């Protein structure tokens, strides 16, 4: 057994975010710098997906599994990640990650595959309140995917299309299925595709603004804003407030989880956690 943990530079931690649509892995060192990360589709086997994402992140970090002292899992599938040492909710992990970059009073907006969160943190990073979207997936990544499919536009082209529009088409419905009907109706009514797409992003923004007020500095994370930064702009315009996008927004949950791993009391070098994961 090597004497890991003696030298700060020699201690490594990982966070895994098993989301409904993608799985993210992040490997950090004790100085909280990211050494490697990976994102892949979650698919049906969450554990396998997490294994692969973890391996890929390790490769990028040029580390082996045995080098990792502590793993924290988060996200929808967190309890399926049997090799993790601990699980934490995505609400706490996104918050922890954002607080790392913005150690002040902030509102974190996270738009994920099937859920939205608005979390308020005090300057110490403690949650003062949090909200998750209600039962349905209106205004989440799943909504955009469904609409891209209905409009027959590749998901990654939505952003560019929306940027060609100066005035989005207003879409009124909460419901994804009804919105699809509304969209078809607008197309029949001669509306331009780019205005409709911008309208879809506005509808995502509206769902967020209904959830809570935005106080302090406003920071966004999650996969949707990583690929569609226009959402942050539209939320900002509607709320009349500056809305910033966090670094590596899609990996924020996994990064937060990795920070928890590094900070976990159990991360103190002990006989137990100095054993390679495979032998614990």
């Amino acid at each position: 057994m090597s004497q890991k943990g003696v030298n700060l530079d020699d201690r490594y931690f990982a966070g895994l975010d098993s989301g409904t649509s993608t799985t993210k892995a992040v490997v950090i060192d004790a100085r909280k710098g990211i050494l490697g990360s990976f994102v892949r589709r979650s698919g049906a086997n969450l554990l396998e997906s997490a294994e692969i994402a973890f391996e890929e992140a390790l490769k990028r970090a040029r580390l082996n599994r045995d080098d990792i002292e502590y793993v924290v899992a988060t996200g929808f599938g967190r309890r399926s990640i049997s090799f993790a040492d601990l699980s934490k909710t995505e609400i706490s992990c996104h918050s922890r990650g954002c607080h790392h970059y913005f150690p002040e009073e902030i509102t974190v907006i996270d738009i994920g595959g099937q859920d939205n969160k608005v979390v308020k943190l005090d300057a110490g990073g403690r949650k003062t309140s949090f909200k998750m979207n209600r039962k349905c997936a209106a205004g989440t990544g799943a909504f955009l995917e469904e609409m891209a499919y209905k409009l027959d536009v590749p998901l990654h082209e939505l952003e560019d299309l929306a940027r060609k529009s100066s005035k989005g088409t207003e879409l009124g419905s909460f419901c994804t299925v009804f919105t699809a009907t509304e969209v078809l109706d607008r197309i029949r009514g001669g509306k331009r595709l780019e205005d409709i797409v911008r309208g879809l992003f506005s509808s995502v923004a509206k769902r967020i603004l209904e959830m809570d007020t935005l106080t302090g500095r406003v920071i966004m994370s999650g996969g949707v804003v990583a690929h569609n930064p226009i959402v942050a702009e539209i939320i900002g315009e509607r709320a009349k407030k500056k809305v910033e996008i966090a670094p590596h927004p899609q990996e924020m949950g996994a990064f937060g989880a990795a920070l928890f791993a590094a900070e976990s009391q159990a991360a103190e070098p002990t006989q137990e956690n100095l054993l390679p994961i495979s032998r614990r």
Partner: protein
Amino acid sequence: MTEKKLLRKPIKAAKQLGEVMRDYSYRMDRISKGEEEGKIAWCTSVGPAELLCALDFEVHYPENHGAMLGSTRLAMDYIPLANAIGYSPDICSYLTSDVGCYLKGETPLSRAYPGIDSVPRPDILAYNTNQCRDVREWFEYYGREFNVPVVGINPPHGLREIVPAEIADVVQQMKDLIPTLEEVSGQKFDIDKFRESMRLSRECSELWGHVLGLARNVPSPWTFFDGTIHMGPAVCLRGSQRANDYYQILKAELEERVAEGVGAVEDERFRIYWEGMPIWGRLRALSEQFYELKSCVLVSTYCNSWIFSAFDENRPFESMAQAYTEIFINRSEPVKERYMEKLVEEFKVDGIIFHDSKTCPNNSNSRYGMPQRLEKKLGIPTLTIDADLNDLRMYSEETTRTNIEAFIEQLEERE
């Protein structure tokens, strides 16, 4: 991650509880089948039960039946049947599950008590809209189905203060029920019997209040989830000695736990207030999740709703009118908030969970900004869960689990 084996702390009195509820159900069944003398009244859970007892009715509570449908999750088979005959999925899911169950000609009582194959047939239905109007529509439905009289009390709503004129109005409405009740029961109303049933009910209410109050202890000897089961006699048998005998047994057991410092949740870390209806079909899963999180849900407006402090056998009509009109659900926001503030303090609560029950707006108190006001005033966090009392189509297991877990993480950050 290693799975920790759960150490549950079963309440021994559950055995006696089972017996009390069984005897009650079989007695009604025998009356319903004509094997025993008697009359059956159906009553809302905070309805004029003591008047009915005074006239020797055995009382069936459709809400209790609704809760059985919820906890057995049979509600999910029945709700659609009621929806199909015009009872909307947006109205009380006790109503829709109960009506659906009736349409199908079934009852969960059969599973629990072999030989019972239907709910007891009513001779009369008596409601009180102090809780909501759904109960009236519900009872009117059965009035038409069974062709029996439906009587009720319609008190003023959403009260801040309760003025004497309002009490006088409710007293009059109660007295107006008597001729019909006499006719159906075939008995003359006897004020002394009424006083006696009020006395028994007051005693029941005091005992129930006392056992609930034992959760003030740290650690709490029992949980809200236990309470939702052990409240059966307070709902269904108040006004009779049977309920009071049972609560003496429960009281002794819980007091013993307190004396020995035994908590319902091992290593209790957080103390939670549950506001709103239970999620009947998920009580077990929720109780286990809180147990794992070392958090005890130990006080609720719901269980407390069967404490009727105003009952006084010396002023039976007035005090019953007072007690049934001043209930939490029938009050204004400021009164509700004051009530909760007091409990938060007394029970040393760390956080409040509001259940926003889709089909029971009447008993969902998160809809007019109350959580935000209480957070500010009390300095403790709140969480709102979107679900339903019986209709699990409104329930997302994972979202709820995550919300609760994140809430406990939020409480941890404050430690």
